[in-house]
């Protein structure tokens, strides 16, 4: 029943796409399309939530390959990701009812938005490799069209090109992965699950899956398209791409590695954990260096993907050493972070979109003081910042804390390699959490606090009520998931049980909403207690100050070291905030260069300080690849100018070569 609801809803989304094309030019088109998307997403959300613990359902449609058809299946894992996708999908559509009014070319966004949603939902329910890859590619292409919505900007065209290249590469890797694990009886997931693989295959498939799903999710060094594509797309699309599409990639990874590949080898976790740790730290370091609000958020998605992959890697490690309860804890942590990140990252992108429409600026160095002009947006954005910085009592803390609990179980692993690696990864995780907090102090402080740094920031006004409603619902969700995490952990239990064969202990029975991952004697966390304490102590402090200090609300000049300066340019800037870290790690991690251009004495021109930051992945990996491709193309170019005998010889040599292969084949 649920699977049919899902398939019909996907059909409805595609129909909405067609409707959007038909309504091109109408003023009401934007509202109608987004309202329809929102409704369908809510329906899908309902299907996902109600199906979380239910039995798997299958359906087959006579589409796709002839005589094979397309198979679809809705099990616990799909239901969970369906929930994640459509929660954000509904919120983003609702947000866009207001935000979409600012779109200059709605006809470039409206048809692709429902198609993008449909593509993501199809990936989740696909039950054979063919439909999975078709849906995956459909999702990639529709989001590529959305990235190119503002294609008149050269930067966006480049972003679109890089994104398309990476997406095609990822699909190619997944295609080869599925080709390797295909069962003799076909490409249906059920057949793949039942098949036995020769021993060298699963490792290769893991590598290909890491390349394919990792390039979509944004694992370092495959992350390069995210910081380009997310700022290019409209904000509600960025929220979907960053909050949800990267999660679809995580789904692809979990589906192939945990579900289809069979029992893991111990070294898989080494690879996944190292990649996750490096991704988490590099992501947040790059985020710290960014001044573009949306690019900062994009790099932060990279960090959070790293955290999720750390959870998945731990689950692989524990599963390989037959510790199902610990594996269940790690996998729960990873999947809970999938949910949490989709919530607060979408919230933050909504906020960035509100700032963008109100001021026309994404560059933080031109913002500032927006808390006075957009107080409600600022409040919601602050909640998102706290949540993503993993501070209690919000939801980000819970999943990262659970990940740490899993890391603390690592001494029980019997492999020495993992015994050394996992604490190191824990250190990286702690580092990235601390740097994330610094990063969001910068993001919130420079954007919303202080004085406006430009006229645009001074003219900013509060955003519309649809956008605000979407933001506040998600802010509330951050708090609820932080205070009552047991609810979400228990909801994840059937998902985890289906993948690693065990589940975390039931949390809902524990009094006062505490969560106990392993045993009461080891550790427990109570978000409600922290929340009550924070509210209570804040109220008491405010009361004491107002009782014994002054009743009056006084607005005075900010402290300025005794040199009052009227220019807002003298404020602490985003780049000055990042300077200490740039000085420490800049040379190694970013190839950072600072160049001071000081005028000679007597010269009246201004001094300049130029800072260049490079993404090392480009230098180390992509530039050589691009050069290699160019060189190869140059060499092959000569084939266009061979003589007739040259071409004949090529044919001849190819034929003889093939005959040799046939002759030498055992």
């Amino acid at each position, binding site marked *: 029943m649920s699977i049919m609801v899902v398939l019909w809803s996907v059909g409805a989304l595609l129909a909405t796409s067609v409707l959007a094309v038909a309504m091109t030019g109408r003023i009401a088109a934007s509202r109608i399309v987004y309202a329809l998307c929102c409704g369908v997403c809510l329906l899908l959300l309902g299907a996902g939530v109600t199906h979380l613990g239910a039995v798997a359902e299958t359906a087959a449609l006579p589409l796709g390959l002839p005589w094979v058809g397309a198979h679809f299946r809705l099990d616990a894992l799909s239901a969970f990701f369906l929930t994640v996708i459509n929660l954000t999908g509904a919120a983003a559509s609702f947000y866009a009812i207001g935000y979409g009014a600012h779109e200059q070319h709605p006809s470039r966004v409206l048809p692709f938005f429902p198609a993008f949603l449909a593509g993501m939902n199809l990936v989740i329910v696909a039950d054979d490799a063919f439909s999975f890859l078709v849906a995956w590619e459909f999702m990639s292409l529709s989001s590529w069209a959305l990235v190119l919505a503002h294609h008149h900007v050269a930067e966006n065209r480049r972003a679109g090109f890089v994104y398309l290249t990476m997406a095609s590469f990822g699909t190619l890797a997944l295609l080869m992965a599925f080709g390797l694990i295909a069962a003799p009886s076909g490409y249906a997931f059920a057949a793949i699950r039942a098949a036995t693989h020769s021993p060298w295959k699963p490792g290769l498939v893991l590598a290909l899956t890491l390349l394919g799903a990792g390039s979509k999710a944004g694992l370092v060094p495959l992350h390069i398209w995210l910081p380009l594509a997310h700022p290019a797309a409209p904000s509600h699309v960025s929220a979907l791409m960053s909050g949800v599409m990267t999660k679809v990639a995580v789904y692809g990874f979990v589906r192939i590695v945990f579900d289809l590949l069979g029992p893991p080898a111990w070294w898989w976790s080494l690879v996944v954990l190292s990649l996750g740790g490096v991704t988490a730290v590099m992501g947040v370091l790059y985020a710290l260096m960014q001044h573009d609000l949306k690019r900062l958020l994009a790099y932060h998605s990279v960090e959070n993907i790293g955290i999720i992959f750390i959870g998945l890697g731990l689950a692989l490690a524990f599963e390989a050493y037959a510790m199902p309860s610990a594996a269940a804890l790690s996998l729960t942590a990873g999947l809970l972070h999938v949910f949490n990140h989709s919530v607060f990252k979408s919230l933050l992108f909504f906020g960035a979109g509100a700032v963008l429409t109100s001021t026309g600026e994404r560059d933080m160095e031109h913002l500032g003081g927006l808390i006075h002009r957009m107080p409600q947006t600022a409040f919601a954005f602050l909640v998102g910042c706290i949540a993503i910085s993993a501070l209690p009592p919000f939801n980000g803390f819970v999943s990262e804390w659970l990940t740490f609990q899993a890391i603390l179980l690592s001494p029980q692993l019997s492999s020495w390699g993992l015994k050394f690696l996992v604490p190191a990864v824990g250190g990286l995780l702690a580092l990235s959490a601390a740097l994330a907090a610094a990063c969001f102090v910068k993001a919130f402080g420079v954007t919303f606090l202080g004085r406006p740094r430009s006229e645009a920031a001074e003219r900013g006004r509060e955003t519309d009520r649809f956008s605000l409603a979407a933001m506040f619902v998600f802010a509330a969700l951050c708090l609820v998931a932080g205070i009552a995490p047991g609810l979400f952990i228990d909801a994840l239990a059937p998902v985890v049980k289906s993948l690693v064969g065990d589940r975390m202990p039931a949390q809902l029975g524990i009094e006062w909403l505490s969560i106990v991952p392993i045993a009461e004697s080891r550790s427990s966390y109570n978000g409600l207690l922290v929340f009550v304490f924070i509210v209570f102590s804040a109220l008491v402090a405010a009361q004491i100050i107002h009782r014994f200090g002054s009743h009056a609300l006084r607005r005075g000049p900010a402290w300025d070291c005794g040199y009052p300066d009227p220019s807002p340019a003298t404020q602490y800037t985003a780049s000055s905030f990042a300077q200490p870290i740039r000085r420490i790690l800049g040379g190694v991690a970013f190839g950072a260069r600072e160049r001071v251009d000081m005028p000679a004495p007597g010269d009246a021109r201004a001094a300049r300080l130029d800072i260049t930051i490079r993404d090392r992945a480009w230098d180390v990996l992509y530039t050589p690849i691009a050069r290699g491709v160019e060189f190869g193309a140059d060499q092959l170019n000569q084939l266009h*100018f*061979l*003589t*007739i*005998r040259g071409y*004949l*010889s090529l*044919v*001849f040599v190819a*034929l*003889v070569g093939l*005959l*040799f292969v*046939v*002759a030498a084949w055992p």
Partner: protein
Amino acid sequence: MGNLSFDIAHLFAGGLVLVSFMLLYQDRMSGLINIFTLHAVVLSLSVGWQAYTQRAWHLFVTAAIALIFKALIIPLSLRRIMVRLRIHRTVEIIGGVGVTMLVGIGLVALSMVVMLRATAAADPLAREDLAFALSVVLLGLLMMVTRRNAVSQVIGFMSLENGLILAAAGAKGMPLVVEISVAFSVLIAFIVIGVFLFRIRERFDTVDVHQLDQFRGEYR
């Protein structure tokens, strides 16, 4: 099938390969055409013998087509073309005859290995036939690669096609339609190539493909 008939079929097919080798090193234009005529005659003999041993009377038609078209019409018209092009006394320069022959021997060995293994289940006559046919095809291709003169490339192409006919005749139950169409396609290719030869000659005063490459300025 008697031992003798197998041996005779073997003799004809092997003879075709031998004539292919003769084509490889022949550098005189008129001699080349004579040998090509011989090639076609041996082919029609071979096909005729197949027709007799297989009791497949339609193969006689194929043999007749091969004899009439390839041993009479095409050589005669090639000779006319050569006379009109005034290249009938030309001696073509072929580099490295010894190496070419060695490569040819290697190709025959290769096709034996491939074919005898690939057709292990087939009847011995067809096996040998297919192996010889593949050798003839490869030798024709080798000839096209090593020659510079457009006319000898055309002859190489047609000897390659003879190999195809040999293969078609050796496989039992091949319908006549296929053979006729193959013959006609070769005839058409021959006409087209002939027309082109004259056009090339009109434009460049030579049928040496080498000169064409130089004209393009791309020759290395």
